[in-house]
């Protein structure tokens, strides 16, 4: 779903830093971020990059040591953690009603939000069932529904679709897109980069506690157009010399490369060269690399 233009910031971070007791290096340093209403930020980074610390600071789980977090109004946060954060021995409806009470939802607003969350996670026929007896995917949907139930300006999703079947995943991603379309801010982390590619309008890559990349995802991906080549095993001998002779510039990708611009004769030369090799490339196409390929390149090959 296309993002709308919402002009105010849901959240601003200024020079955020955090160091855990006894740690040699800070988990986060110098983080500046402004998240617009209606924007979904895909938060990427390898293990230890500082994603969880950043989410913990936003959720108020960790105390702020350095910098400033500025909210548009009061802190208002919906949360879908990776853990199944509900009561397994309560029924689905009881879980939802418990959290509706804790979110201070009453009257018509309560009924409307409950109905919306139940419908958007397709839990209508599971309401009378104990959460422990739901399938793994249904439990994820309940976890998701409890997060969505909270009226908030910003929603945090942390690996929210782990273990979910393909159909449920589409449902949940559509719910995230719906949130941004309604003008809510969203921060979304996932190891499924295709999900981030779908829902996020902006990518923030953390590396060793610092922002390594903060870009509009469409721009990032669209700027990546060109001829994409992916080798079966390794680059054929003489290919580098060919590119030099043709005065072509290339960027390395995991197991391949991208040639941003070339003309017809240059493409013909490359095709002819490759056709004479015993092993054809695994991929040869015009287009843009996937977010995963870009992420691996930007993050030095670390997942």
């Amino acid at each position, binding site marked *: 779903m296309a993002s709308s233009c919402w002009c105010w910031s849901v959240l601003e971070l200024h020079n955020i830093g955090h160091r855990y007791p006894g740690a040699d290096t800070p988990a986060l340093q110098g983080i500046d971020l402004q998240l617009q209403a209606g924007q979904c930020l895909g938060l990427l980074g390898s293990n230890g990059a500082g994603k969880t610390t950043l989410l913990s600071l936003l959720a108020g789980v960790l105390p702020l040591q350095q910098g400033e977090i500025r909210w548009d109004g009061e802190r208002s946060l919906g949360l879908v953690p990776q853990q199944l954060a509900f009561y397994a021995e*309560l029924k689905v409806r009881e879980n939802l009603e418990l959290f509706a*009470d804790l979110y201070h939802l009453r009257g018509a607003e309560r009924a409307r939000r409950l109905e919306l969350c139940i419908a958007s996670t397709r839990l209508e026929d599971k309401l009378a069932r104990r959460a422990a007896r739901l399938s793994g995917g249904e439990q994820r949907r309940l976890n998701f529904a409890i997060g969505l139930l909270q009226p908030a300006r910003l929603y945090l999703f942390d690996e929210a679709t782990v273990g979910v079947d393909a159909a449920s995943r589409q449902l949940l991603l559509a719910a995230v897109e719906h949130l941004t379309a309604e003008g809510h801010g969203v921060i979304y982390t996932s190891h499924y980069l295709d999900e981030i590619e779908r829902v996020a309008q902006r990518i923030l890559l953390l590396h060793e506690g610092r922002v390594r990349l903060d870009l509009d995802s469409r721009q990032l991906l669209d700027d990546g157009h060109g001829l994409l080549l992916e080798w079966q095993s390794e680059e054929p001998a003489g290919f580098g010399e060919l590119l030099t002779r043709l005065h072509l510039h290339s960027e390395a990708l995991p197991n391949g490369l991208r040639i941003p611009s070339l003309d017809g004769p240059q493409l013909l030369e490359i095709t002819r060269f490759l056709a004479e090799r015993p092993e054809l490339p695994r991929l040869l196409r015009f287009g843009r690399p996937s977010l995963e390929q870009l992420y691996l390149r930007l993050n030095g090959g670390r997942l």
Partner: protein
Amino acid sequence: MRLRALVRKEILLLLRDPHALAVLFIMPTLFLVLMAGAMSNYLQDKPPALRLELQVPQASSYSEAFRAALQVQLPNSEMVAAGDPRSSRVSLPADFAESLLNDNAAGPALGFPPQLDKLSREHLRGAVRVALAQTRLLAFLEDSGDLDAGLPLAERLALVQQRTASRIEERELLASGDLSGRANASQLSVPAWLIFGMFFVALPMAGGFQREQQSGALLRFRALGLNLGALALSKVLPYLLINLLQFALLLAIGVHGLPLIGLQGLSLPGSPGAYVLLAISLTCATCGLGLLLAALARSAEQALLLGGGINIILAALGGIMVPKSVMPAAMGQLAEISPMSWALDAFLTLLVGQGSPADIAPYCFRLLLMAALFGAGGWLLFRRRVQQTQWTTY
């Protein structure tokens, strides 16, 4: 609204936890009934009826006097014929009549069947001593001419019994609440297993908190900025209610249930206010322990082991499993460190000593002090624990 929702959630979770319900209600009920039954013979107010065989090699008026005197001492006993292996035997010597005045050491020989309990043996020994003394006095009075030997035996014996009867005034001095030595099986079993069961609220209370933290629900609460006082209170309030329910239910079983199965029912003498005071003090103490355990344990399994272990040790020390009256003095002193012992002493002061609220106030004060200390410590640790809850990713 939030507190009400959290309390409702705790109650629903407890009602759906069959293990917790079994530990809180079925286990103490079973223990109560089984132990009241098992100890009913040993700890009864009246000794059990004896089956008695009196062996008389040479009948005389004195052997008849002895038989009659013995029957008076053992009114509910049954005199049986020879050869019954379950009966106790009292064998008079062949020269019983002659030796009565000549040999002060002479007396009958006693034979006990192997199953006969200590209390019955002691009761028989006492009855034989009294019957022998009365027969000897009868012989002495007849020998000295103070008693007309021509009177019927029953009349002569009645005169002797009049002379040996004495009015003994008994006064109970309530120096200590440990009245387990005087308590009957119901008076001991009902409060003991009631207290034991009440302390077990610490297990589901602590286990539930661990599951809440492991599931990530606590993370949601923290992100929500939920008041920690409300969270702690939501853990304590349902178990306060459960404890009061256990108290009322198990006492009711003691009063009304035990007689239905042929056991001596419990009577509840004294002021109802005293029982209310004791119930509240005990409940506060168990919930204080539960909160502390919830904050100390790191997993539901640890809470189960730690809580179960602590309760069993407190019960063994505190006279729940073995009455303090049969413990050696040193063990009895050690029992004083167990809050279960304080609660049991308070109960026995009411049930056996017929004490007043003032009599049990020192025990209630100790229980409330424990509640305050454990509760305050538990609250501080609980708060720190919740504040240290971290965002978990895999």
